[in-house]
């Protein structure tokens, strides 16, 4: 009992110490609020991140938000950051805490945050919640819950064009022939390429199909193998998948996974004398793979955040589903690597311009077939399901809408999150993920 009293007293002393301190800092806080009052808006933004600046995906969001804030004139103390928030109950805690700190706008950057964000959004109808990469804002029936995603399939298509030009150069120069690298040609004489995918979701399928179609638009005799890692970030598995793909004959290795594992492995194989190149994702891979990296497709999150912050500051309506691509500068490819084919930059500029003005559609139905047939109809069920009991239970009922019109599959317009999930001819998914 005595001991307990001792602990209690020690605790009490700590309290009084901290209490003494608090007077000092209130003054300091007072100073900063005065500063904020001088800013053009009293908007307060809360940001919930799955990682921190040391993790590429979150780092891209941090940069995007900071750049956008600087552009629209938001000061540092108008943004509250929550780092390393897991996709669990911690996320609803973080969101609720940000509400408590006076945030008017709360952004989360990972897909799995969505189901927790929506709970908090239900509780606080006066605060706006944006779940980046989420997919059920429009059918949630909440006015204060939003989704956004970039049309990254467009930049994947462009990165595919870069890869296609390289293939063309390799074949036309006689560097890559059935004699020099027999493994890289299938029985029909198609050149093999590969793709390291994270999970077999629409987001990844949409991405690799766009990439493949980009390659095919330049170099038509091509076939692609997709290998999954079942992880968004796993350097070892991504490296192992790239090595396996190259061993199977892939000349180009694309990726939809967040690490540098695949480009690093491709560079090692290239240094061993194999003809192989890498197309990265998110960040410039030239540091990791100085000669093997051709380019990477990236998101330019700033494009969205600038629009979001401006709308929030002016009290304007925030779009429920935001998805823009080249037309808004929301996607891009990184600097071209030294071994890119001649004339790549010109071709890229041409394709980007066509995507921008809408004369080119990535998923033009004239350019792909499923089971040998041209696809004329692709109904998309927008309902959000819960599969946990073994059967699909609709959590938010959505309509089923037709995605194909005017001869192309219209990606990311029915909702911001990708939904292209057709398995087109020429691409083979490995049934087993990489070991």
């Amino acid at each position, binding site marked *: 009992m005595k001991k*307990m009293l001792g602990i209690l007293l020690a605790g009490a002393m700590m309290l009084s110490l901290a209490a003494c301190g608090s007077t000092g*800092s209130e003054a300091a806080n007072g100073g900063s609020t005065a500063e904020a009052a001088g800013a053009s808006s009293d908007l307060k933004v809360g940001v919930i991140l799955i990682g921190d600046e040391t993790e590429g995906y979150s780092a891209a969001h941090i940069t995007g938000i900071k750049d956008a804030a600087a552009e629209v004139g938001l000061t540092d103390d108008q943004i509250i950051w929550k*780092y390393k928030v*897991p996709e669990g*109950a911690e996320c609803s805690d973080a969101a*609720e805490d940000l509400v*408590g700190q006076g945030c008017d706008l709360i952004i989360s950057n990972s897909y799995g945050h969505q189901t927790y964000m929506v709970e908090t959004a239900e509780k606080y109808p006066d605060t706006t919640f944006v779940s980046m990469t989420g997919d059920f804002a429009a059918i949630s029936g909440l006015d204060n819950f939003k989704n956004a995603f970039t049309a990254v399939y467009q930049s994947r298509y462009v990165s595919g064009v870069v890869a296609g030009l390289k293939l063309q150069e390799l074949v036309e120069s006689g560097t890559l022939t059935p004699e020099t690298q027999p493994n890289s040609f299938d029985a029909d004489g198609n050149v093999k390429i590969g793709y390291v995918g994270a999970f077999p979701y629409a987001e990844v399928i949409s991405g690799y199909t766009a990439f493949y179609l980009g390659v095919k638009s330049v170099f038509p005799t091509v076939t692609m193998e997709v290998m999954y890692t079942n992880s968004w970030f796993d350097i070892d598995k991504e490296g192992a998948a790239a090595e396996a793909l190259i061993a199977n004959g892939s000349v180009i290795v694309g990726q939809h996974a967040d690490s540098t594992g695949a480009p690093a492995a491709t560079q090692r194989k290239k240094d061993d004398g194999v003809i192989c190149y890498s197309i990265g994702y998110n960040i410039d891979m030239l540091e990791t793979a100085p000669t093997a990296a051709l380019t990477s497709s990236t998101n330019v999150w700033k494009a969205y955040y600038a629009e979001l912050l401006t709308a929030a500051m002016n009290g304007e309506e925030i779009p429920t589903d935001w998805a823009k691509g080249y037309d808004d500068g929301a996607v891009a490819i990184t600097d071209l690597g030294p071994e890119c084919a001649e004339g790549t930059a010109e071709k890229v500029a041409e394709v980007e311009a066509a995507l921008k003005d809408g004369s080119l559609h990535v998923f033009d139905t004239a350019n792909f077939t499923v089971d040998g047939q041209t696809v004329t109809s692709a109904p998309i069920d927008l309902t959000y*399901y819960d599969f*946990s009991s073994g059967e699909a239970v609709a959590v938010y009922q959505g309509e089923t809408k037709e995605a194909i019109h005017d001869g192309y599959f219209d990606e990311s317009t029915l909702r911001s999150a990708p939904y292209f999930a057709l398995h087109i001819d020429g691409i083979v998914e490995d049934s087993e993920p990489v070991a």
Partner: protein
Amino acid sequence: MAAHTSHPAEPLVRIARRKAAPLSRKIAVRAAAILLALVVDALFIFFVTGLNPISVYVVMWGGTFSTPVRFSWAMRDLSTLLCIGIALAPAFKMRFWNIGAEGQVLVGGLATALIMVYFGNSLPAPALFAAMVLGSVAAGALWGFVPAWFKARWNTNETLFTLMMNYVATSIVACMTNIMRGQASSLGTLNKATKAGWLPIIFGQRYTINIIVVLVLTFAMYAYLKYSKHGYEIAVVGESENTARYAGINVRRVMVRTMLISGAICGLCGFLIVAGKDQTISTTSAGGNGFTAIIVAWLAKFNTFYMALISFLLIFLERGASEIASAYSLNEYAADIITGVILFFILGSEFFINYRLIWRGHHKEVKGE
């Protein structure tokens, strides 16, 4: 022969066990430890991060105390940590090193989640909750029973055994969550549409029941260890198995029974986490509390009321650290250093309460003390 006051062979300082220190001394030592920790932290904060130490301390304090809801979250997290501490207390008092609380909590949580999902629509609420509680308790008890039985039967090493059981539990949970998420990319909350199996909201929070249950357990376990015959048997087995045998205590039975209880409470904690706190299950549902709780149980010497205080301190430091990281855009590691220093000094102060240092040549003063 003249006595040498400082013999060359005498060490500079010797450590001797202190008889029960007076309360005033305990308070003084702990207060000094906290003060010293705050000073060392202030130096770190000022010279490494360049921030004002006082305002950092205020932010840290605010992690738990700035708003009522933050305080209530602290209570919720405290109840989880304390619940596992309570579960571990009888096992550790028996000197049975149960490192497997993490796994026992996970299987309890998994049992809860499975019952919640597969019977959520068919059972009425009271029966569903009863099934969830029973399922979680049984699963946790099983996870505690297996290593205990092997130890009682073949004297296997329980530290390794319980530790390994954690990995088994984690893998089973990983496998099941993968099955349950179906075509979705992550599992999300369970029974989102029906909210079946979610604990009811009381006083505005779902986890109010968690706090009440753990409060009851705190008293119950205190009484069990201190006043029951079982508690006495546990203490005797912990002191010496041979003495226990000599006194006619069935050591094997006590061992298995105690681990069943330990595992069952861990399993119940899994139920509270899934039904009252997270409404979902994942490999990180126990969140390392199974290991932190070992510190809690040991520091409190298995007194459940001290455990509550120590849990509170740990939760306060943890919430303070993440608040510092958020408020100053500091890397979380820097915030962890700040709380780590405080914890280090508080733990270190126990040494000065239980032991004294005898400096070379200070015999007389020490004797006079």
